[in-house]
């Protein structure tokens, strides 16, 4: 469903993402972990078509994102860490706009809107202007809009930021159910317990390179560790940092 083929992204002299190759099949919940500045958000922005890769290809549902961008983006919903809503639209009007933009059949729109409003408990404020929403209300509305047109792929960047524990629990249940129903979910998070609890596979990225990929068991084997995901993550990223420090410096200088 999602294919990244030797994707690289360069900002001047700095490689934000380097030779990233990744295939995520249909119905998998994939968690993407990494320290700050590792390249997670850049990878996500490339996946959603917001940024163009410096090299490599990205395919969503068989569509090349560069050549058939509109068709590819029709399959994706993206939930950013800072949700955007039009201040002068109500939640319901924003949902209607999304339905129109994604070409949902008219006869389905009313039914689906009622479903997502109920599902995300938007009834109390869906007819208020979004400029009056709290962060949690905005996050729920954006999620509702993301799932309204039943996308094939859901890309979420730090979806639990700013949510209360109850909302986080509900979000985890929702993500689990969506993956079970066949949606492919690409999740970037700092929350290791969510990744550990939900993800079918986990990718660990640092300095733009994929350091570890697989289920928790496979990552434990890679890291030669029996600890939890936090231990595995810290070990893998630390090993890579040490390896980078030990590599010969330009000019033959000692590190």
């Amino acid at each position: 469903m999602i294919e990244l083929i030797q994707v690289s992204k360069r900002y001047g002299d700095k490689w934000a993402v380097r030779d990233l190759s990744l295939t995520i099949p249909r119905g998998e919940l994939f968690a993407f972990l990494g320290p700050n500045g590792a390249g997670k958000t850049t990878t996500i922005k490339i996946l959603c078509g917001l940024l163009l890769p410096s090299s490599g290809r990205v395919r969503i549902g068989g569509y090349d994102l560069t050549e058939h961008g509109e068709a590819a983006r029709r399959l994706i919903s993206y939930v950013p860490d800072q949700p955007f809503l039009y201040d002068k639209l109500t939640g319901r009007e924003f949902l209607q706009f999304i339905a129109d933009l994604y070409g949902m059949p008219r006869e389905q729109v009313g039914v689906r809107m009622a479903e997502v409003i109920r599902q995300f408990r938007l009834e109390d404020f869906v007819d208020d202007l979004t400029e009056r929403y709290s962060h949690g209300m905005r996050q729920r509305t954006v999620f509702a809009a993301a799932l309204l047109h039943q996308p094939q792929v859901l890309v979420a960047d730090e979806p639990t930021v700013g949510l209360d524990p109850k909302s986080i629990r509900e979000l985890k249940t929702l993500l689990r159910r969506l993956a079970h129903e066949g949606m492919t979910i690409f999740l970037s998070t700092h929350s290791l317990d969510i990744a550990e609890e939900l993800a079918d596979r986990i990718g660990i990225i640092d300095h733009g390179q994929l350091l570890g990929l697989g289920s928790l068991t496979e990552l434990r084997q890679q890291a030669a560790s029996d600890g939890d995901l936090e231990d595995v993550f810290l070990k893998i990223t630390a090993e890579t940092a040490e390896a980078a420090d030990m590599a010969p410096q330009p000019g033959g200088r000692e590190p």
Partner: protein
Amino acid sequence: MTGADAVLQVVGGTCPQGCRADPPWESQSRLVRVAQRVERMGAVEVQVDQAAVFRRLRWRLWRNGLRVAWQQGRTRLITVLLTSSFTAIFTFGLSYFLFRQLAVHNIPVKGAIAEALFDLLFFSLGTMLLFSAGLILYASLFPSAEVRFLLTTPARADRIFASKFLGAATYSSWGFVVLGIPIFLAYGWVSTVPWYYYLLVPAYLTGYVLVPASVAALVCLVVIRYGLHRRRWVLTALAILAGALVVWWLYRVGLGLRRTLSTSGREVQELLDQFAWVRSNLVPSRWMTRGVVAAARGDLWGALWPLAQVWSNGAMLYVVAAWTASRLYRKAYDQWASSQRRRKVYRPAWSDRFMAWLVGYLSPAEQALVVKDFRTFRRDPSQWGVLVIFTVLMLLGAGNFRRAQLSDLGRLDQYLISLMNFFGVAMLLCAALTRFIFPLISLEGKKFWVLGLAPLPRRAILRSKLAFAITGALLFAGSLILVADLLIGLPTLVIGVHLAAVGVIAVGLSALNVGLGAALADYQQTDPSKIVVGFGGTVNMVLGLGYMVVIMGLTVVPVHLVQMGRGNAWPPPLWAFAGWPVSLLLAWYACRLSLRRGSAALQASEF
């Protein structure tokens, strides 16, 4: 349920209640192939009328915005309408008076003068629209959170562009229409034009907006796409070329103006010739003038042809811009986003320490606030670049009248030229303060909690903004006036009057901008250019212009009129300074009322 399952469910196999199980016109194998194609592609191809989707979006945003403004800020809305109406009426009145003077005094070349004025007006308005639309488009197409969202949806690049273009063209042409229509209405009234003139003028103005706005869009897209804004040598070369052309043109205008003044207005041809390039048939402003003048003369067909030229060229330029956007916009966005990630190293500069020294009379916390605002200002060349350009142009203009060239100009002309120069500096100061100082409080916006929780009274925030504004205004306007007056060769007393008057104007305008900027803050808006053209910015600009004109009228104009009438008699009589007490009182009231209002609003702000 996947898309493929849904297709199969509807057209074959299990079927929900109410639908046909086996469409007779389709074989099962074809249905399977369709379902497999759907499965592989993951979606059914849909054709979406994105133009209609965005039209509905814009309608809802406009309708809801108007509703909120009416329900929550009726006074503001009415004030905007009244202020705009007042501006239009004032412009109409002034234009009517000037056109009437041309007609009544039966000046031989009044037709040519009117045409030349229209040429210059359309060209100036078009140039201003080019820059303002370009800046607004840049802010809408690149740093905006909305486009970050839209670019991840199936919205096409040209659709996003079209939506933003409409917003930019509307925002930047508002003043164009509010000022342009009254001028042409006044001309029509004085010249007793046919009825269709009044229908054609709005049609001309609306079509004309497309031309500079589309050019601005093209330039914006190409510059960002090919990273020209990062290639200093390109920008430097363009700036030097543009500067050299402008300097040469100003020199020629100066020669023409000197000839006109030295012959008491009898020989204007040399001056008018300097505007010949504006009157070229290739320049869209010329089509506008030809059309409007033809309509005024009653030549309907003569008016319709230029109208068709304006609209067809405007439409063509828009289509080219939209096509360019469909090809370049995503790549341009990627270029822009990539350039934002490059690390720049910022260090404290000597200018920060100099600014802190200039406001040394403030408390350390207030000094820190001033230095913060100054740093923000100097680190954004788009803020002060235009100011520098206009400053250089004004000095070059004044430099045309160096002492060595004054042998064929009488004192009358020196006073006239210096008065025009003073007016130009005051206008520039008014515009600069409106553009840079008025939005300061609004731009604190979502970060206001940092200042709000700081251990200093909110009045201190206002004081620091005021100190920043006054320091910059006095330095800028004072030095400009001093240099220009020395170049023109005015007596010391008159230079002193000018400096004192510009000081009063600078202090009053600074207080107005800071006070009204706090009282009419728009914390939701992050684009300073939109804050300035919004309700608060409009009120502030109109009040500032009015204040500037009144102070100038009370302080500088009497001295100039007296001296122009008395030839070389010196010094001016005391009664020429009679307006000063009133002007100082007015300045005091302007400062007190606006700062009081601003302070109260700031105290009441929640975040």
